[in-house]
């Protein structure tokens, strides 16, 4: 099995025994990096779950302010982009370069679409003043949290010890979490889009073929992890509040 097939002039790096050796090493390296991504976002999810259990009223009312329609659209966008990314890799493996470029381009468009929907969501919230901590000025939201907490206290005896006065100050915490989590995720979507653009250009230049397509698969893995994180982020923030 010679390592360099005719069309793709690929030679494996000098310190590897063979192309397969380089491929499995690269794959393992990317998977290790995926673990660090999971752990980083995981830290955020852990903090979110802990605070959700500490200040349930704030998170319940907060999530009712989120627009589930926009969230669902974003989820559909990301899922299709994951699908087109997988096809992008598939056609690169099959060496059908034009189709691969089309699907990669669709993935980039989906990423931009995702950011567009996010832009509307953010501008709507900033307009309402629902922004983290220091700059928060939406007394109506605070009032809603207080009302919800008081009737929660009235309905069931289990929640007698909620300190309503403190809730007034804690209310902006929800949007602190919302903007940090979705903001960091959005930043990763942008990084993903740039990486896919870089890979599309390389595909156009014909660097890839059935023998060598590791960068495409690496970027694909990164994109799927970003999609995976959104799959967990969407229900936690929008639905389950």
């Amino acid at each position, binding site marked *: 099995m010679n390592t360099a097939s005719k069309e793709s002039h690929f030679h494996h790096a*000098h*310190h590897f025994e063979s192309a397969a050796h380089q491929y499995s090493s690269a794959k393992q*390296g990317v998977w*290790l*990096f995926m673990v660090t*991504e999971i752990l980083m976002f995981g830290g955020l999810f852990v903090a979110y779950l802990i605070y959700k259990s*500490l200040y349930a009223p704030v998170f319940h009312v907060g999530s009712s302010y989120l627009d589930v329609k926009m969230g669902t659209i974003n989820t559909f966008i990301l899922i299709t982009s994951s699908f087109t990314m997988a096809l992008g890799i598939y056609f690169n493996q099959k060496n059908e370069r034009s189709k691969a470029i089309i699907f990669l381009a669709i993935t980039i468009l989906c990423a931009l679409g995702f950011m567009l929907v996010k832009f509307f969501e953010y501008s709507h919230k900033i307009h309402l003043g629902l922004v983290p901590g220091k700059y928060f000025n939406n007394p109506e939201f605070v009032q809603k949290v207080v009302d919800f907490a008081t009737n929660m206290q009235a309905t069931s005896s289990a929640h007698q010890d909620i300190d309503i006065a403190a809730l007034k*100050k804690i209310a902006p915490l929800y949007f602190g979490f919302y903007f940090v989590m979705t903001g960091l995720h959005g930043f990763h979507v942008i990084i993903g889009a740039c990486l896919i653009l870089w890979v599309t250009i390389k595909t156009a230049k014909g660097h890839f073929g059935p023998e060598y397509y590791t960068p495409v698969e690496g970027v694909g893995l990164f994109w799927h992890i970003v999609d995976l994180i959104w799959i967990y982020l969407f229900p936690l923030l929008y639905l389950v509040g």
Partner: protein
Amino acid sequence: MAHTETHSHDYLNHQKGLWSWLTTIDHKRIGIMYLIVILFFFLIGGIFALLIRMELFSAGPTLGIDPGTYNRLMTFHGAIMVFMVIVPGIPSIFGNFLIPIMLGAKDVAFPRLNLFSWYVFMLGAIIAFASLLFGGADTGWTFYTPYSIRQPNGVIFLVLGAFTMGMASILTGLNFIVTVHKLRAPGQTMSRIPLFVWSTYATAIIQVLATPVLGITLLLLVAEKTLGVGIFDPTIGGDPVLFQHFFWFYSHPAVYIMVLPAMGIISELIATYSRKTVFGYTAIAYSSLAIGAVSFIVWGHHMFVSGQSEFAGIMFSVITMLVGVPTAIKLFNWIATMYMGSIKLDAPMLFAIGFMFLFTIGGLTGVWLATLGMDVHFHDTYFVVAHFHYVMVGGTLMAFTGGLFYWFPKMFGRVCNDGTARISWVLIFTGFNVTFFPQFILGAMGMPRRYFDYLPQYESLNQISTVGSWLIGAGFLVALFAVIHGLLRGEKASNNPWGGTTLEWLATSPPHHENFEKTPIVSVGPYEYR
């Protein structure tokens, strides 16, 4: 480098010029670049340490600086030493230089990523030092909230600097894991790789799994300071104890990132200078992994009196006792290696003996601090300062200097003057004990740490401690002189000056830029002294 042109394809003279160094993907050159940068940061951190000790010479303000400056000195001494010297130290210098050679590979798995992590490390260091322009940081290297939230913006830069250096640490760890998995020489199974590779492998696993949580904690701290998000700010609902949980979830495994490679170096030094196969190879290798595994579930012993609940305190105390067992196993195995060996007390072996002496004291006092009953009295006093200096300076830095003198011939093709190195050991070892043993007593007497000014009853011991710090300073300067002298006028080194049996002693010194002309076949264990 005034170096004769006998064979130009060794890695130092293979290419000439600064640009060839700055764009090299040769793991050996990257190791040397890390060495130069980290020695420079060690010098700065050391100067801050001497200034702190000078200030503490006598009760009132001694150097005429105000508490604010002292707090900044204390914070930068901690941050530089932790994030820029000890955490990256041994893995990036000796790990980068030696692991590929010890595995018979031509380079690490991802050479370009290796160079990229050096630049990310430099970027992180620059950002961290930029905090001096914005009012510096006086929060201590632990950045405890809510104090760090209320401080000037210098803290944001130091935090982002630490985040970026954490990124470099992840990439280095990732590189080493794949290298150890995929690029071992033919016939070299996991039970035939040197113990230095085993401990750096365990360190790499901790680096990859612990640093991301530090990343998110520091990002949340920056979000807290800029947007007032409120996760760690008690006035708007946050919980400062939760910050401590997140911070120490990284920082305790980080202290094992610091000490495990040092243990790897000590295994190598003791094996070579006792000319005896290491006693209990599997036990030492497995202990590295066991320490790595258990280090993730013990972080609560930093928070026994921080408002953490009693049940959590009990739980963390019992598991911290578990971590003591593999460390004790390693110490016993090293001493058993010396039994019936033929021990030559060269300078590197002296540093290994120094490590054993100081690390034993550090380890034992660690058990005291893990005991619930004692920690309530000793927490945040000078007892803790003495404990972690015994383990970090006595452990990691002694091993680092010993490793530097041991592999100096292999790295630069010249041998350091053994006499000067021994003088530096004597100065460092005695100076260290004179500095930090009185601090155990100060801690028992109840002197709190991070104090700019203290009660007169603590003055005499602090004066002894300051004198000791001058000795350490002198010792490390002599070591630096020995290294520079060795570089310029050290006598030529043979391929195997100390009689080691691990693979790097098969290569020429300094090694060929591809490490070996022909990849070696390994058929026996790494320490075969028959």
